[in-house]
Every structure is written in structure tokens, then in C-alpha cells.
């Protein structure tokens, strides 16, 4: 392999290297997740081995701490 460095290939492979259950749930529940985020709510996803994923909207910075 000379056309590209191994590091570039490694970075490429590592992208999206996530568990299958997570990929499936995100892809199948895209609409539900987007609706929840639009209304400011979080969505919880559970994996087969006790994994837990919470997807929430970005919290705006607290104005009290702004300078």
C-alpha cells in the first residue's frame, strides 16, 4: 500500500464503526428522533447488552455565565 498512508486508511475505517444495534435503531427511528429534538426533548435508546444512549438537543449556553 503506497498510494495512501496507513493512518489515512485507519481514519476512514474508524468512521461509523459503531455497534449494529445502534446503527439500526438510529436508522429506523430517524423520524421519531428528529421530532423529539425539534420539540426540545431527548430520546433514549437501549442496546442488547445494557448499553444506553440518550440523544438530546444542544443545550444553549446559560446567559447568566455569558460575558
Amino acid at each position, binding site marked *: 500500500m503506497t498510494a495512501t498512508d496507513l493512518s489515512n486508511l485507519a481514519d476512514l*475505517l474508524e*468512521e461509523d464503526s459503531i455497534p449494529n444495534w445502534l446503527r439500526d435503531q*438510529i436508522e429506523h427511528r*430517524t423520524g421519531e428522533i428528529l421530532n423529539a429534538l425539534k420539540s426540545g426533548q431527548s430520546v433514549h435508546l437501549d442496546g442488547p447488552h445494557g448499553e444506553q444512549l440518550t440523544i438530546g438537543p444542544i443545550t444553549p449556553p446559560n446567559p447568566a455565565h455569558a460575558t
Partner: protein
Amino acid sequence: MIALAASLVLALYVVVPGLLFRSIYRLFIPLRIVSGNTTEEATRAVMTNVIPLTLALLIVWYVPWLDNFPVHADLPELRAQDYKLVASCIYSEQQCNAAGQNFWAALNRTWRRQTVFLFWFYLLTAGTGFGIGYLAGGYGRFRSNRFYRWFADKLLFSRISEWHPLLTAFVFADKNTVVRANVLTVTDNLYRGVVSEHFVDSDGKLTGLILTEALRFDRRSFLQDKDAKLSPETEAYWHSVPGAKLYVFADKIVDLNLNYESPEPSLEMVEKYIERWLERPVQVEYSTPKTKRKS
């Protein structure tokens, strides 16, 4: 006599260290993944021998105590003279006869010095093999370090067969990462499964791979149902392949679609994937039974 001496020198100073280095290096990483032509292999062999050779020379010349281990090698001031005498006696029988007992005394000192040198040379070669093997085998763990990345790209893996990083968890810090493949063959069969092993030839070209948990896609039934407007669900057309392992010859592969599943991905990776899929920034909290991480 000269040929015999040259063969002995070649074996002791080139062949044995090379074998020693490779046998230790391969404990960490398969040797076949690093390909290259004869010149590149020779250059790599020289490079890996230069460090232990230099250090061994420094030890036997300058380090007291260590320069007489594991055997005693005395009269270092006669070193050059002894080598000269031994070499001339190997070259000419007449000179050997003329030297008499001096030759045997010089030969005795010479083999002792060389035993000391070879001891340290082999030990340092083994150490170098261990060190470089450890660095090469830990690529997934170390590659976040930019100095290591440069070292790996330019020296350790300048000529790596691309199939090893593609078909194994080699580049991942999490060695439990599973490589899943969808394989389309020239006979228009589509298989999917976990890549459990792959094989390359001496040039690093893929010759075949073994899939476990293999499924075959029933394309004929799928197309029939599709034509009959039955709105088929594609998952229902995947059927398991009899046998625990499916060997696919590389020359029968038309297309290879690869997926990497890390059981414990980094939070950053999860967040990136979700943001890319949803096309908006999100806040993610991810936990496994062992860990809890929040972005």
C-alpha cells in the same frame, strides 16, 4: 577454507539475527502483511540490524564488566593483531604453519571476543524485535500520537498489504471490533457474514476469506416477489448458509462492502455518526454496563 569461514560469518552475523528478529516480531503481528520487493526487504533487514549491531559493538569495546560476559575475553589491545593473524591463516596455509602456536592463541582470543559480541548482538536484536513488534502490534492504541503516526506510516508500515487493516480489527484500539462484509460474487450471489480470517499471497494480494455467521441472499425469490408487487422486506430473504464457515475465493469476488462494529465505540464516534445521519448537532450521552460518557 575461505568459503567455509565466509558461510559461517554470514550465518552467525546475518542469518541468525534475521531469524531471531522475525521470530520475535511475528509474535505481535503477522509477517505476511508487510510486503515489499527484495531491495526493500534487504533495506528493512539492514535497518533493523544496525541499531543492535552498533550497540553491541559499543558494549564490547567500551563497557566494563559487560565486555567480558558470558565468557572472559582478555588482551583487548591485541584485537586488531589477532584478527589480522586469523584472517591471514584462513587465507594461506603457509602463513598458518609459520604462525604456529601464535595462531591458536589468537584464534582462542578471537572466538571469545566474538562470543561476547554475538551474545550482546543477539540479545539486542531480540530486544529490537520485541520493541518494534510491540509498536507495530499496538497500532490501534498508539496511532492517536502524531509522532507514532509518522513513524508507522513512513517506517513500520510503509509497504503494508491493505487487506490486513481492511479485514481485521488491526487499526482499532478496541480489538473486539467485528468486521462484517457483504460479498457479491461473479456468480451473482450475495453473501454476508463476519470476516473471521483472510489469506494473502507473498505479494500481499488477497486470495480468499472466511465468513462466519454467513447468510446468502435469495435474490431470485426477492425479484419474483418484487415483480409480483408484494413489497418484499429484504431481511426476509437472507438465509443461513449450511456449515460453520464459508470460504470465498478472492478471484470470485466482484464487490466487497465492509462494516466495522466496535462494541465500545468512543463517544466522539457515536456523536459524529448521529450528527451526520440526522444532519444536525445533538448532545449525546452513551453508557455501557462498564462506562458512562457524555458529550
